[in-house]
Structure formats: structure tokens, C-alpha cells
């Protein structure tokens, strides 16, 4: 073997805490999983059908680097219609390979070696590695359950240094289901403006809020110029496998981002772009239907989990509940491992999303009510057995 040193940063990134569970679950035959981070719905047929049609028409070419003009126009209209976001299709948007590429490209756009990025946790697994791979330094902020896992101004201030360049906001949040209201965001906007920070707002779950409407921080006064919004089609339209996301931001950000995207990716898959075009144009109704179903399951989960003694605050976004398992006396990882082994139910330990996830597990409700009920019954048995053993 050649004895050459590989990229130090990449080689030193620890393996994902999720991988381990995935490996065990796949060896079990009748395991039920609440571990999935994607919708259970198929992409609505009219959207799939547009993808098929684009293939039939032989549209198998590259598109422009930033994405099909029609798609960019339609996304901009959609963002205006749904979230009151104003971006120009020609200069202020790039279509990416899922939100994930959007996050990576955004970080590579703004970071220089040594720049610090505030990463509130628990949160999606890619932020810290992507910051590191871009030469930046991730600075985790441990969010607290007593704040329902919302970010506060004080928490931001505690972690500021002169090297702080940006802050990543991901609300509605995976894994906690937390959201940030306009007032919550205003407090963060104030400090961002005061300290001249860039805000990267990952709004992939924006369509999935229950009760409160989603507010984008980019719509607050003085924030548009310093906010980069990353989103995509995966969660709202059940289009995860199509890999279509986008980044919207003022032109000076997008100009540089497009350079990175152009050389790394060239363009997003063309078939997927045509399908996404149909989704953005005619998919509002699909979103409402799926959201209605998630909302019912969400309430069912919260009710059942609280009743069995796994306390959870009411998540107002995404499709996850994040119950505390502290009453069992187990760590998150012990709980998840034992639950999987004894009851064959897979959940994800909170620690997979940052150290501050200790004491919690993530349960996805992107499953049918019938599946959820079987899983909940088994979790209830498991919790009861632990409590019995403890009292012996």
C-alpha cells in the first residue's frame, strides 16, 4: 500500500453515529424502524409523470449550471407565494443536488481557514463536517430542552469570538422538531446585525410546521443582505431521491457559489429538474395533504409517548419527536441499542445529532399510523420492563 497521507480533515472526521444502527437494523428481519429521515409518501404521481415525460422526450442533456431557467423562475415564485421571500431568478438562485450540496457549497463560498461557524445542536449531521472540510472551525451551541430547543441570543453571545463568521440556523429542526417564531428569530437577527454575522438558514422543513407558520429570517429587516437560505424539494414534496435543492441569496454570494457548484457538480440532474418544475408549479395541494397526515401522527406520537412516561415537548415542525429517555436511567445510545435488540424497534439516539442530544431519542413519524402504533406498543413494553427491573 502506498504510504501517502490522505486529507487530514476528512480522514479525521468520526463516523456517523447513525451508521452503527443502520448496520444492526439491516441484519434484523422483522425490525420496525422509526429511524428514517425522509417522507413515507411516494412523490406525487403528477410530478413523477413529468420526470418520465422528460425522459421520453429525450431531455437527457446538461442544463445551465444554475439550473433550468424555468425552474429557477418557478422556485422564486414559489418562495414569494409561500414565504414572502424575494429573489431574482437570474442572479440570486442556484439549483443544487439536494439541500446537502447547498449547505456544502454555501460554507465553501463564505469560509476562509480559521473562520468560526456557530452550529446549534442537536441538529442535522452534516454541518460540522462541512464546516471543517471548508477549512472552518465549527463551534457547537448546546440547545436546551427548557427552551424547547430554540436558539437564544444569550447562547449566541456566549460563543462569539472575533473569528465568528456565520451561524447556521436549521428550523424547523431535525431531530428535535423545534421551530423559531418571528420573535425568536428577531433576537438572533439583532445580534447577527450587530456583530456582522452571516446567517445560513437551512429551511428544508419550512413547509412542515404545525400551528405556527414558518418565518424565514431573511424576511426580517436588515437580514436579506446577510442571509443565505438553503432549501429543497425533498421533504415538502417527498422527493428525497431526486436530489433537488437550491440556495437563494444576494448575487455576490451566488456568484461565488456558482463557481464552486459549476466545477464540482456541473448541474443538477436534468430529469429531476423537470420533475421539480412540476412540483413547484402545481404541488401546493400535495404539500397540504401530506402535512395534514403528518400532523395527525405527530399528535398521536406525543400523546402515546407522554403517556408511557417518555416526556416530550410538543414539536411544531418537521416529522420528528424528540422524547426524553432520562426517566429510564439509560443513556441515549444504551436505550436505542437495547430497544433494538429486545423489541426490534429502531430509533436514533439523540447523541447522533450532537452531544447535547444526550438523554433524548429521535423518533420519526414518517410512517403509517398502523406502523407507528406497533412501534409505540413495543416501546411502551420496553419502558415498562426497564421500570420493573429498576424497582426490583
Amino acid at each position, binding site marked *: 500500500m502506498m504510504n501517502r497521507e490522505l486529507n487530514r480533515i476528512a480522514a479525521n472526521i468520526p463516523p456517523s453515529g447513525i451508521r452503527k444502527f443502520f448496520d444492526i437494523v439491516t441484519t434484523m428481519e422483522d425490525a420496525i424502524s422509526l429511524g428514517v429521515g425522509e417522507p413515507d409518501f411516494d412523490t406525487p404521481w403528477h410530478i413523477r409523470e413529468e420526470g418520465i415525460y422528460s425522459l421520453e422526450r429525450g431531455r437527457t442533456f446538461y442544463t445551465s449550471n444554475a439550473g433550468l431557467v424555468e425552474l429557477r423562475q418557478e422556485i422564486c415564485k414559489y418562495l414569494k407565494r409561500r414565504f414572502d421571500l424575494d429573489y431574482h431568478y437570474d442572479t440570486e438562485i442556484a439549483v443544487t443536488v439536494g439541500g446537502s450540496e447547498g449547505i456544502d457549497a454555501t460554507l465553501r463560498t463564505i469560509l476562509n481557514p480559521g473562520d468560526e461557524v456557530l452550529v446549534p445542536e442537536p441538529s442535522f449531521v452534516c454541518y460540522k463536517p462541512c464546516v471543517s472540510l471548508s477549512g472552518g472551525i465549527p463551534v457547537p451551541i448546546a440547545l436546551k430542552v427548557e427552551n424547547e430547543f430554540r436558539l437564544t441570543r444569550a447562547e449566541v453571545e456566549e460563543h462569539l469570538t472575533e473569528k465568528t463568521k456565520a451561524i447556521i440556523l436549521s428550523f424547523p429542526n*431535525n431531530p428535535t422538531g423545534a421551530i423559531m417564531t418571528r420573535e425568536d428569530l428577531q433576537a438572533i437577527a439583532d445580534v447577527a446585525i450587530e456583530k456582522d454575522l452571516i446567517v445560513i438558514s437551512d429551511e428544508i422543513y419550512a413547509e412542515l410546521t404545525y400551528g405556527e407558520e414558518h418565518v424565514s429570517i431573511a424576511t426580517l429587516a436588515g437580514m436579506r443582505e446577510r442571509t443565505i437560505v438553503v432549501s429543497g424539494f425533498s421533504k415538502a414534496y417527498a422527493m428525497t431521491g431526486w436530489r433537488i435543492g437550491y440556495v437563494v441569496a444576494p448575487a455576490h454570494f451566488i456568484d461565488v457559489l456558482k463557481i464552486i457548484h459549476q466545477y464540482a457538480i456541473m448541474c443538477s440532474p436534468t430529469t429531476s429538474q423537470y420533475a421539480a418544475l412540476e412540483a413547484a408549479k402545481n404541488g401546493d395541494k400535495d404539500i397540504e395533504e401530506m402535512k395534514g397526515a403528518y400532523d395527525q401522527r405527530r399528535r398521536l406520537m406525543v400523546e402515546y409517548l407522554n403517556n408511557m412516561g417518555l416526556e416530550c415537548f410538543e414539536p411544531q415542525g418537521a416529522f420528528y419527536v424528540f422524547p426524553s429517555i432520562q426517566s429510564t436511567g439509560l443513556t441515549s445510545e444504551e436505550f436505542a441499542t437495547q430497544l433494538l435488540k429486545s423489541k426490534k424497534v429502531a430509533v436514533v439516539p439523540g447523541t447522533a445529532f450532537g452531544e447535547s442530544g444526550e438523554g433524548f431519542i429521535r423518533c420519526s413519524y414518517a410512517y403509517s399510523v398502523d406502523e407507528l402504533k406497533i412501534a409505540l406498543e413495543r416501546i411502551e413494553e420496553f419502558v415498562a420492563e426497564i421500570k420493573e427491573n429498576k424497582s426490583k
Partner: protein
Amino acid sequence: MKEQLLYALENHSKRTVKDLAAMFGTSEDVISEELTQMEKERIICGYHALINWDKTNTDKVTALIEVRVTPQRGEGFDKIARRIYMFEEVKSVYLMSGGFDLTVIIEGATMKEVALFVGQKLAPLESVLSTATHFVLKKYKDYGVIFEEERKDERMAVTP
């Protein structure tokens, strides 16, 4: 909530009151009350199982019959429609726009049985001008449910 409750039941009429209460964030009493009220008002007209009879040994044929009728003074189509839908063999009756007036859906054990019903009961009715019988050969999808498709969760079991 009423409408949402109906949508929830339309696809899963077996949901328990307990689960519905949890799903709608309310009490079991409220759900029971709501259901009873809607049953009374005939908004909910029944709770049915959707069965793919082709998979059983029961012989069943379904026919769709286009019926042209003469509407009656003062009664319109309602009176003749009633004459038709009161027959037990008739599963559905719809008043239509377009080339004919009533769609009548009939179920019988055999084609012959259905044909006899049309010939002996339906066609001779005074206001019936003509009938055209079409037999259903295969049901692919009924009431929004695809019969043959097997649903399998092919997602990876654990993803971020």
C-alpha cells in the same frame, strides 16, 4: 375538524375513537359526539370494507348500465331513480350529464343473472327508454385504492 375527521375515516374507517382523539388532539368524548352527530345527519352513511372479491372464491360480476329515461313532470328524475335503486341488486345509481341519464351499477353472481335482471326488471320500466350493459372485467383501482400493488417500504431503515 369535522372535515379532517371525515378524510381520516374515509381511508381508515377502522380507526378507534381513542386513536382519533390522539390524532386530533382532543378527547374521546368529543370524537364520539362528533361521529354520532354526523351519523345522525347522514353525513356518515356507513362504514364499509373495501374487498377485492376477485381474490376469493365468491362469484361476483359487476355491470355498469347506461340508462336513458323520460323524466316525469314534477318529479324530474328522482322518481324513476327510486324505482331503480330500491332493487337489492342495484349497488349504485348516479344521475349523469351527457349522452344518457342514469348510471346503474349492478352486482350479480353471474353474467346471466345480471342480464336477466336488466331484461326483466330494468328495461321494462315505463320511463326507461333504453339500456346499455357493460360488464366489468377487472378492477384495478376502487375508491382510491390500487388492488394489485404491493406496498413495501424500501427506504433505508435509518437515515439522518
